[in-house]
């Protein structure tokens, strides 16, 4: 097969490309330039689109003996991921940009271009398994990335290749070292790649400006002030800066965000408990399951798994939990699993 290997400059995508080569495929490496003005060097472990990362990817491709190019996807990434991220926070939701990037960039814009240019498959370093065309969790539970891939439709998964799903991270690093790849010991990237300093609140303030408002408790009494509702996420405890202590001194958490009235509502931990959620735009990673679906749900990357039943009502996904998951933020993705198999996903709009 003709394989397009997306190479971020990290160890995972380099080993994924190496495995595609070893499997006998005709592999071409591509680094996706996501920023219109890439920084020269990485800042710590964050980011994946500096010139240094691009050079690391090129070196890995050289070692593997495959052609290598850089694709400029900055315009699409800016519009479909970064602008969306800002707009979601401005609307009081908590987006997951990695999910959006997989949905709209890697397995949409890049995949479409790859197919048009004659490639059969896009190969990435995601830790996930494809079993008979169905998306499954990786065997390394600490690295499993099936959650951020839960937005992919069957036609996208059909063109995807995830060679690392059967491996543990340590083994991937050892394999990279054995292949002579210089990125073998490179730190894992984490956080949000387009916020290189890692301070999301500060980054949002630069773009959205100060929007002061009140922090209130569930009775409506003002207990503090803030300078931007976008800086908060449901379930957040730290950094609230409340001026009025709670009765009994119990810690308080963000329960809700109202961007129009610029109000943050806080309350006790048990008020974060949720028994149902509504999520929009359901996507099925295979055939739509028999409804109501009984299985499990994951509500954030590397989050806990909750037993649930799910149904579709008026086009939205309704999920009911057996236990009471806590602190579910609208904007995040709910991914449904049947044991280790990803069934589908939707974007959380409200909880009860």
């Amino acid at each position, binding site marked *: 097969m003709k394989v397009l290997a997306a190479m971020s400059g990290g160890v995972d995508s380099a080993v994924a490309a190496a495995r595609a080569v070893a499997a006998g495929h005709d592999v071409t490496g591509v680094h996706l*330039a996501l920023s219109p003005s890439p920084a020269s060097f990485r800042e710590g472990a964050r980011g994946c689109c500096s010139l240094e990362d691009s050079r690391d990817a090129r070196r890995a491709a050289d070692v593997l003996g495959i052609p290598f190019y*850089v694709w*400029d996807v900055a315009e*699409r990434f800016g519009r479909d991921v970064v602008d969306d991220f800002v707009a979601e926070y401005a609307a009081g939701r908590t987006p997951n940009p990695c999910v959006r990037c997989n949905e709209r960039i890697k397995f949409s814009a890049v995949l479409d*271009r790859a197919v*048009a240019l*004659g490639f059969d498959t896009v190969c990435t370093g995601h830790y996930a398994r494809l079993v008979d065309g169905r998306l499954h969790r990786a065997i390394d539970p600490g690295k499993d990335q099936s959650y951020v891939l839960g937005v992919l439709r069957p036609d996208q998964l059909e063109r995807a290749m995830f060679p690392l799903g059967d491996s543990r991270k340590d083994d991937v690093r050892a394999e990279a070292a054995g292949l002579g790849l210089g990125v073998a010991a490179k730190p894992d990237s984490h956080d949000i790649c387009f916020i290189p300093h890692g301070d999301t609140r500060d980054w949002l303030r630069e773009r959205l400006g100060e929007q002061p408002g009140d922090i209130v408790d569930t009775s409506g009494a003002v207990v503090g002030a803030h300078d931007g509702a976008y800086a908060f996420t449901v379930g957040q405890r730290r950094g609230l800066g409340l001026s009025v202590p709670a009765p009994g001194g119990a810690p308080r958490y963000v329960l809700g965000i109202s961007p129009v009235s610029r109000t943050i509502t806080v309350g006790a931990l048990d008020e974060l408990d949720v028994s149902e959620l509504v999520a929009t735009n359901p996507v099925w990673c295979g055939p739509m399951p028999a409804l109501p679906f009984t299985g499990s749900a994951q509500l954030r990357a590397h989050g806990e798994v909750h037993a649930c039943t799910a149904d579709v009502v008026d086009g939205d996904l309704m999920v009911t939990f057996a236990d009471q998951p806590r602190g579910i933020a609208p904007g995040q993705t709910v991914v449904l699993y049947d044991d280790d198999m990803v069934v589908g996903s939707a974007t959380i709009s409200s909880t009860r």
Partner: protein
Amino acid sequence: MAYLDHAATTPMLPEAAEAMAALLTQPGNASSLHAAGRRARRVVEESRETIAAALGARPSEVIFTSGGTESDNLAIKGLFWARHRSDPRRRRLLLSAVEHHAVLDSALWLTEHDAATITWLPVDEGGRLTPEALRAAIDENPDDVAMVSVMWANNEVGTVQPIEALARVAHDYGVPIHTDAVQAVGQLPVDFAASGVDAMTATGHKFGGPLGAGVLLLGRDVGCTPVLHGGGQERDVRSGTLDVAAIAGLAVAAEVAVKEQPARADRVRALRDDLVAGVQVSVPDALFNGVPVADAAGRLPGNAHFSFPGCEGDALLMLLDARGIECSTGSACSAGVARPSHVLLAMGHDEERARGSLRFSLGHTSTATDVDALISAIVPTVERARSAATALR
């Protein structure tokens, strides 16, 4: 493999490689006083004489540098500093809008870190600057002009500038003029003295010499403030231990390239004309950029430059590369984030046309087989690139 990227770098001539190899293991710093030093110095000075003869300069006008970028930096900054120091009113750099980045960025640096301002000299749709346009720009205020820089031939679209006429205009006002002749040497007749310019950049690896060796030809009475300071080896204008072997290779390449230039240009031009005709028959809507090939003196003989409507240049390049055909996109590239070529924009073309462009450049090793390989690959390549063009938008 069909290598159609000689404007990026062209393979070394065997004679130049031999001359260089013979010297690489020899001891001797050309500045040393002992016998080994004198032997090295002799090679350097004989090479200087050879290069001077090949390019129409006096030996004392040849300053060895590390290549085109250094020569351009030295010419722009050195001439600006010398002229500005002798009369602080002289701040204005007059540059054609299609210069190489080694000139552009040196000049921009002077605007950011020094007193310089830039007047961009417009070009026509073929990429050519007229002497009238230069005269008009100087006439805005002849007293504040520090220098003029106009390339001999453009690296992207191959347009040849009327350098002698431009030099006459500059000298009417007593203003020095530099030309970046990196693409011209070996492709066109180049005579420093006859051109009338005050400074000229050339580099070895574009005409069959080694990488990392070039010259700035600098008139003897042209003031030039050094950029590199140290031992003052080259006329106190350029410091650094001379690379004797590379200089010997550079001299051999210059001699051979200039001697063979007329015959080679005819041969390469015929191949280039076949390439252009073949692409135009295969892809009728391809747009040819620059001066028409019929104007044989107006365009580098080895250069062909096309825009393929509806295609992205990087997709075309990748698809051709996969078929063993090597060329360049028409856009400058920083970590793969392509910016539309400033050359095509200056010629009045839009971003679409700039983005979808490819440069094919032929040289001394090019054959009809290379041209045929491109012609047979171009149709499926353009069709495929066209179908992929909108995915990333």
